[in-house]
């Protein structure tokens, strides 16, 4: 099984033709990690923690843009990684307009029943931080 970040969680959102992810955690970085794990789960692209680590760097004009760029980076990695899926992931640095993460990829442990996700979209996109510092994100995917 993929290593799920201990803090926070994710849930899938219903959409007529597509599907969304709501992710939350004690910080924005945690919520972004949860969103990444949610994406991999939806795509059936998960793996045992092992394998190679890919450093990821994305930029965006704001936190919402960063989340979309981050998820699109993962979609790209899953598609070109022949038979490999997400084993674990860690957001190592989060600035207002840039994000770095370590993405661990390993041979997939799923049956190929995942959804083909074309991209993360900006539709009804939301990243919010509560006064206590906890965070929540919502993003819709084109499937």
């Amino acid at each position, binding site marked *: 099984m993929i290593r799920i970040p201990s803090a926070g969680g994710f849930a899938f959102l219903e959409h007529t033709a597509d599907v969304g992810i709501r992710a939350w955690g004690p910080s924005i970085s945690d919520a972004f990690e949860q969103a990444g794990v949610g994406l991999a789960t939806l795509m059936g692209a998960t793996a045992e923690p092992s394998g190679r680590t890919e450093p990821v760097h994305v930029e965006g004009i704001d936190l919402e843009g960063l989340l979309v760029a981050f998820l699109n980076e993962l979609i790209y990695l899953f598609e070109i990684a022949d038979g490999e899926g997400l084993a674990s992931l860690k957001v190592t640095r989060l600035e207002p307009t840039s994000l770095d993460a370590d993405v661990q990829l390993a041979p997939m442990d799923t049956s190929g029943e995942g959804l*083909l996700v074309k991209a993360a979209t900006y539709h009804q996109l939301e990243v919010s931080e509560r006064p206590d510092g906890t965070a929540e994100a919502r993003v819709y995917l084109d499937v």
Partner: protein
Amino acid sequence: MELERVNEYEWRVPIGTVAGMRVPGIVFGTEELIQRAVEDRAIQQVANVATLPGIVGASYAMPDIHWGYGFPIGGVAATDADGDGVISPGGVGFDIACGVRLVRTDLTWEAEVRPRIGELVSALGNATPRGTGAGGRLHLSRTDLLRVLRDGVGFLLDRGIGSPRDAEYCEDGGVLEDALPDEVSERALTRGAGQLGSLGAGNHFLEVQVVDAILEPQAANVMGLFEGQVCVMIHCGSRGLGHQVCTDYVATMDRLMGPLGIEVPDRQLACAPLTNEAARRYVGAMNAAANFARANRHVLANGVRACFEAVLERSARDLGVALVYDVAHNLAKLEEHEVDGRHRRLCVHRKGATRAFGPGHPSLPDAYRAIGQPVLIPGSMGTASFVLVGTAEAEYKAFASTCHGAGRVMSRTQARKRIGGHELARQLEAEGITLAPGSPKLLAEEAPFAYKDVDEVVRSCEGAGLARTVAKLRPVGVVKG
């Protein structure tokens, strides 16, 4: 949400429904279809599109409208190419030039194909890469991939794949001349290099179909269609290459809107004026991805041809295997249309809508000029599909556009809750539909009841004057993406 009824099949979304609308919305469909669209917030999206700078006429939606992201699925928006019009990559969608190809044969179902359908579907299933991560039938070098992006179907013909007739009967002759492969990112090329000749997933399919009814004998005759005939319909797009082109340029335009002072009610409507450098680059990359999509369907159809030859042990020529037409339903095109008595150059976005030129249009193959452009409407998996033709009337109604399919009404989870994959497979088999092996879970997500009634969608298009129905086809063999 207040809609004004214009007539039985046409509804108006008045200016002011959302702030900043520059034109009204016009939605086509029966009262029941419209009610569904209101419930799933798609009408709100029609109103949002009406705020785009330079939009001309109205923000249109076809009877298969449903909730999308940014644009509604089924949306048509034309912007002024000689003025302040914009182009929005989200108004084309991630699956650039996703579309439908119909291949005919001289074979009759009952006598010639029915006894061999199991073997035929098995062969087609094995010859058609599908699902997530599937590599295509052709693996291309970087140089050859760039040629596909520039030359579309022509590149494959040069390699001896297919016949010249295949280009002639494809929209735009199989190639958009103004493609700019250099504007396609390295990442998009990496995703596309191994995917030419693959179906993808979701609602994409390859079906063996039988012509169930002919409704316009003259047009059917011109297209070589007759009752009881076996055809193959392919529904797929530009794969990861197209998805990445859209991803790249939505992000580019999202960054540009602030500096350009453009505001839109939904960030997925990100856009740039057609005169902007980013827009010029996107148009070139989009056209390149469209060439990839046509080439993709061409390669798959060539695999179909080989399967028919192998299973029926006759040559494709002898079997009468030939392309009827190939048309895209996710694309933006520069077209000339008459607006208020004046010819104007417009950028027509069709997001889940099909171009439907009427009789006499110069861009049609000679053989089809008298009947109008063939429009291919894939039903949802296991339900009827249709062949329509464009009308002269549609030119003045929605910039020569019509519907593209059934349109979803139920989410994937809801569909899975209602039926198991194995149960659905049994039901389809009981209805006489042979299925190529695949995932039961993904089968259930595409259950026919998760979609609108395609008959009602087509009837609405006909009622609204957007197209005429030529033939109805029913599936007998399904290879699901």
